[in-house]
């Protein structure tokens, strides 16, 4: 399946994995820090 | 869980209600015999309004029990609500409707059809032919309309939260008449007030609230002299 390969398709694959780890890792770090501000902006309570 | 109520009036035991991090009513015991009238005194924020709203089943208690006629008030609220009427600061009127339309709307919601609002409005001194919306009325007039609406019902427990507020002297006299009339009919009354000298004579017992608790109870006549601010 090498001839149908889209040029630079690994870039998309890497982007997907980096986004996954970035998003999940970022959220995990906030939880570990213990004081996350996960609520969307517009109000505090 | 608690023992049965001792009498068939209003029995309150350990009543508590919180708002967020604060207990507005923090363990109140009350006994109002059937046909009696209780005056509740206390500064702003002492818990009078919350107490009355709990008695009216507007708020669920977070602790404690209330019985009315030996029935648990909150648990049986669907059946008991027609017997309880609360007159609040908020008029609960529809501001875009006239006084007459307001009475018609509320009467119909209570299942009364063919009511003539004229008599009810005459009773509180509002001309029945006024067609402008309640929005244009003064605060005192709105309260009179609210009183007229309360009088459409025949409750057995009548709760009045600062009934004198915004009323002129004839209006205050009217409240006195209404209370006397209701008492003559055997209606039990709980009345929150800032004016013990005026409302005291209408009642036969008084309590004073402070930070959600009863700090004093006695005769209304003693309240006037002892607790005037």
């Amino acid at each position, binding site marked *: 399946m090498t001839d149908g390969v889209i040029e630079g398709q690994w870039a998309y694959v890497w982007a997907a994995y980096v986004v996954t780890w970035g998003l999940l890792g970022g959220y995990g770090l906030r939880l570990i820090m213990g004081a996350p501000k996960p609520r969307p902006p*517009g*109000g505090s309570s | 869980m608690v023992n049965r109520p001792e009498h068939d009036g209003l029995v309150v035991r350990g009543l508590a209600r919180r708002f967020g991090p604060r207990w507005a009513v923090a363990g109140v015991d009350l006994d109002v015999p059937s046909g009696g009238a209780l005056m509740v005194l206390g500064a702003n924020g002492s818990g009078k309004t919350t107490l009355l709203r709990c008695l*009216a*089943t*507007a*708020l*669920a208690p977070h602790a404690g029990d209330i019985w009315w006629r030996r029935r648990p008030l909150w648990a049986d609220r*669907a059946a008991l*609500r*027609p017997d*309880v009427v*609360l007159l*609040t600061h*908020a*008029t*609960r*009127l*529809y*501001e*875009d*409707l006239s006084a007459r*339309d307001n009475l018609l*709307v*509320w009467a*119909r*919601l*209570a*299942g009364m059809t063919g009511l003539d609002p004229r008599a009810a409005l005459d009773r509180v001194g509002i001309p029945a032919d006024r067609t402008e*919306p309640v929005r244009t009325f003064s605060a005192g007039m709105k309260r009179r309309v609210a009183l007229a609406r309360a009088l459409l019902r025949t409750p057995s427990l009548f709760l009045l939260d600062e009934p004198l507020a915004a009323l002129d002297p004839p209006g205050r006299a009217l409240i006195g008449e209404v209370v006397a009339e209701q008492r003559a009919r055997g209606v039990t009354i709980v009345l929150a007030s800032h004016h013990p000298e005026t409302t005291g004579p209408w009642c036969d017992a008084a309590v004073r609230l402070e930070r959600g608790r009863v700090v004093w109870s006695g005769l209304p006549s003693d309240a006037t002299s002892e607790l005037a601010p």
Partner: protein
Amino acid sequence: MIRLVQQIAAVVWKDLLIEWRGPARLSGLFVFAVAILLLMAFAAGSVEVMRKIAGGTLWVGMLLASTRSLDQSFSVEAEQGALEGLVLWPVDPLALFYGKALANALVLFGVGVALTPLTIAVMDAPIAGSPWVYLGFLVAGSAAVAAPGTLYAMITSQARGASVLLPLLLLPLVMPALLAASRGTTVLMEGDPMDQAGGWLGLLIAFDLVHWSLSGLLFSRIVENP
């Protein structure tokens, strides 16, 4: 049961009376929807595009108008604390919900009926299919917005930022109904060559059934402050 129906009727009558007496409420809604209609017509440019988007425009106008009317429907209750008064009067919470939802649906239906000839004229999109099915779409579509709308308007009228919160909650929820209603009316305007209108109407009615039953239950569960 009879008592429930009587109370529902009383609530509908009350809401419509307030809507009628209120200063320029209905006409305001209508003008609002008309403005959206005109904007979309300008944006469309050509007649072919207008015809294609006529159905969608009608429903976007209805939907945006509904967020205003639903908001008003509970701001009159909130203004002097009437909502609590109704619960204590006592009005059965179910009657309160179905009465208000019915009144809201009627108002919306009225806006839809008034908007129809204008849409046809402005967008040059006559209803080629059955006008009765079209009317069915107006009824079912108004009902689809009114049921969850009444529930959410009750909630947001007592929260901060009510006017932002209501569309934020309601619009994604009624997306399927909007899709079904606007696709259905659009194919009706095209004469329904592939016989799709019935399917879309079915979807809309299914949405109505789910939300009219569920919202009533949920409303009566939360209208009393626990």
